[in-house]
């Protein structure tokens, strides 16, 4: 591989070469990962560029970089040059920091390309190079061992050069692999590739946080955590256990000192050690190490030993390594007479809220108080988006514990609408249930959605052999209870669940306690009502067995491991994945495709700032609220058949809107659209 340094002398020729090639892979080296909206140019050390296999051009930033920025503007703004990167969103953020504002044409990402080829594999550049381009094997180890800043200039140049060279090689390898499956390549060009730019913009905008409000609740939560910690310490058994721990610590300290005393040679030291041992024995000095309620090891001793609560240990409480779990699911099964377990669970949830949603968000804010979460196309096997740093899709909204309900609500309330904007949430209504109706073609399900009915009501009525009219005449509390039960069945049984599995699911997710008989009856009646669903399950399990993968509506392949395994647990999980992935993956694709089209169609004044599973969150200027009708139209009428060769034949997606002038936590339904 030939490496050249970019300079004023060769930059014009290089631009012509890039234009002639039409393909350029770009890779930036940064000092640590850049923080969007926070870090500046100083974090970007160098970049490399390859327009042809076998060579790389490298530039190390030195302060006199204006001509380089102009060069990059030409590349990024040129529709006829395909920009290639590995995790190209990151490179685009670097380019944005450097002052690039026009991102035109195709942005192809070898990371998301590989995820399409093999959703189960490792997608990091080092792993892919080891598999596909072994002549550069292990070059990544150069920076595994050292910080990028510790590389000398020649090493840095060589390392950076290889990055863009291998990315370009991978690009052509992956393009060929994807083109072997026209559906996959079409999906890449119409969804995965254009979505890169949408997600880049979404990360760049971020969401506005009311920092003062957050700070106020950080202090409040600290107080609340302290008060729950006190409650835990005041428990009689905990007090006794603390004494036991203190005693053990005392014994341990005395033993340590006694050993030291034996080997001490100096008389003065001997006297000091003897005195300390005497003081410890006579309780003149005490040793106390407060119990750490966040330590699984200490909690295991407190909960399951005779010095503590001595709760009976069932086999199901044990983890694979044989240890007794102190996880939430096990704790909820313990006989909690003193209220300790409930307080412990609240204490843990408070700590989680504090570290993840309060401090975790505040510490990542930029100067304008915006939070910039990252969105990944390669985080799940179904292709659904994932988010991290922070996870914008997992902002807490619910708790089992009424004691902290108000605190939970403030998390979303800290996400506020900017001045003169509305925060609007567009949500595909019952997306997965509608898609199950489409995939299974179940007549009862289809009829509900085709007539804009209520599926939970229909399930509740059918499971009681009642007509909808009869069911609606039930007393209000019964109506509500049965509908709620039906909801748990609709969501729980959709994806092939055993009777026991459903019983546990209903308890854990809906707080519904069912006997085995009741659960059996519900499962039987559910599949009697929606008789095409078991056939859908069988069909997709058979597909997974035959091909090793199942496909979403748009053609994405989701590989299913262990579908032929003799181990019932492994095979059962694989079967549920085979059944779930086409529906969940398709639901994700609808939202992602809507993002792509809305990015084209909507005026730039309307900002898409977040997406959570089946919903998209917008900042819409007050004067632009009329545009919601276009958003609705696009989301409900996606041209799937035109772009992916397959569309929805039997059902229509429905989108509900909520809005607020204040915050994400204070949304109101938008009616009469």
């Amino acid at each position, binding site marked *: 591989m030939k490496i050249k340094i970019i300079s004023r002398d060769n930059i014009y020729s290089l631009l012509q070469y890039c234009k002639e090639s039409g*393909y350029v892979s770009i890779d930036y080296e940064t000092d640590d990962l850049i923080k969007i909206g926070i870090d500046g140019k100083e974090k970007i050390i160098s970049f490399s560029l390859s327009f042809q296999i076998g060579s790389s051009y490298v530039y190390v930033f030195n302060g006199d970089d204006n001509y380089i920025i102009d060069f990059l503007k030409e590349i990024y703004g040129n529709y006829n040059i395909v920009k290639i990167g590995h995790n190209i969103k990151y490179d685009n953020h670097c380019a944005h920091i450097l002052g690039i504002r026009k991102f035109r044409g195709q942005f192809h990402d070898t990371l998301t390309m590989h995820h399409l080829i093999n959703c189960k594999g490792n997608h990091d550049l080092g792993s892919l190079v080891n598999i596909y381009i072994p002549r550069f094997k292990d070059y990544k180890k150069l920076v595994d061992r050292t910080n990028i800043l510790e590389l000398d200039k020649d090493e840095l140049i060589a390392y950076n050069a290889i990055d863009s060279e291998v990315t370009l090689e991978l690009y052509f390898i992956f393009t060929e692999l994807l083109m072997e499956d026209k559906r996959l390549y079409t999906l890449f060009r119409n969804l995965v590739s254009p979505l890169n730019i949408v997600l880049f913009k979404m990360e760049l905008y971020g969401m506005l946080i009311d920092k003062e409000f957050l700070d106020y609740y950080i202090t409040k939560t600290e107080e609340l955590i302290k008060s729950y910690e006190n409650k835990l310490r005041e428990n009689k058994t905990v007090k006794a256990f603390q004494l036991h721990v203190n005693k053990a610590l005392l014994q341990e300290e005395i033993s340590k000192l006694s050993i030291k005393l034996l080997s001490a040679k100096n008389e003065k030291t001997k006297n000091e050690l003897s005195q300390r041992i005497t003081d410890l024995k006579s309780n003149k000095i005490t040793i106390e190490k407060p119990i750490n309620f966040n330590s699984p090891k200490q909690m295991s001793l407190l909960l399951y030993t005779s010095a503590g609560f001595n709760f009976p240990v069932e086999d199901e409480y044990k983890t694979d390594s044989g240890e007794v779990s102190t996880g939430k699911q096990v704790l909820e099964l313990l006989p909690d007479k003193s209220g300790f377990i409930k307080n412990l669970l609240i204490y843990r949830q408070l700590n989680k809220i504090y570290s993840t949603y309060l401090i975790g968000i505040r510490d990542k804010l930029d100067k304008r108080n915006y939070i910039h979460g990252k969105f990944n196309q390669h985080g799940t096997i179904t292709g659904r988006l994932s988010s991290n740093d922070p996870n914008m899709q997992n902002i807490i909204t619910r708790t089992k514990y009424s004691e902290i309900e108000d605190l939970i609500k403030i998390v979303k309330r800290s996400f506020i609408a900017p001045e003169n904007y509305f925060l609007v949430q567009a949500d595909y209504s019952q997306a997965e249930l509608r898609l199950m109706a489409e995939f299974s073609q179940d007549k009862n399900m289809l009829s509900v959605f085709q007539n804009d009915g209520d599926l939970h009501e229909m399930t509740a009525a059918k499971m009681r052999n009642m007509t909808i009219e009869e069911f609606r005449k039930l007393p209000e509390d019964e109506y509500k209870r049965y509908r709620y039960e039906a909801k748990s069945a609709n969501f729980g049984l959709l994806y092939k669940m055993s009777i026991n599995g459903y019983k546990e699911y209903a308890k854990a997710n809906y707080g519904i306690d069912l006997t085995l008989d009741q659960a059996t009856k519900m499962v039987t009646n559910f599949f009697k009502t929606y008789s095409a669903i078991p056939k859908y399950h069988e069909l997709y399990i058979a597909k997974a067995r035959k091909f090793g993968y199942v496909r979403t509506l748009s053609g994405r392949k989701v590989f299913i491991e262990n579908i032929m395994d003799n181990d019932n647990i492994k095979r059962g999980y694989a079967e549920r994945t085979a059944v779930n992935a086409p529906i969940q993956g398709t639901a994700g694709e609808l939202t992602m495709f809507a993002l792509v089209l809305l990015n084209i169609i909507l005026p730039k004044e309307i900002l898409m700032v977040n997406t959570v599973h089946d919903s998209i969150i917008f900042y819409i200027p007050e004067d632009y609220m009329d545009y919601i009708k276009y958003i609705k139209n696009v989301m409900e009428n996606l041209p799937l058949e035109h772009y992916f060769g397959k569309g929805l034949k039997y059902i229509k997606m429905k989108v509900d809107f909520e809005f607020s002038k204040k915050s994400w936590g204070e949304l109101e339904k938008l009616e009469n659209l």
Partner: protein
Amino acid sequence: MRTKKEEKTKIDLSIPVNIDSYNLSEEDCFGNLWLPSDNDCSLCADNELCGVIYSNKIKKKKAEFEFDNKTIDNTRFNEVNWDLIKKQAINYKKENNPMTFTELFMYVKDVSKCDNDVVIETYIEANLLNHNLCKKDGLILPL
């Protein structure tokens, strides 16, 4: 069976290679079977040159795909010049020859390289208002 090139072809890969200057034989692996994960490929002295030639084939295949299939990542909606559209809508109205929706549609379709009529129509409708224009009786008029 792949053949190994014994000597590296002396060519500067930091400038574009003129692919047409190579008389390639279909029976030779060179330029036809580039597969860098293959051992023989890894050892071949002309691996990179072979990759250049091979990548050119993939570029051609991709261009053929793009000719047959208009993809979303190839659309150019940013190229639609709304200032010009607005100016013309005003001028045409003054000249008593208002711009028709069909004319605007054809312009956007041509510039954006989008082949989906519904997407184009929705794009136009969503952007008319934003540029103080409206659609009335099939005509594009200033608000």
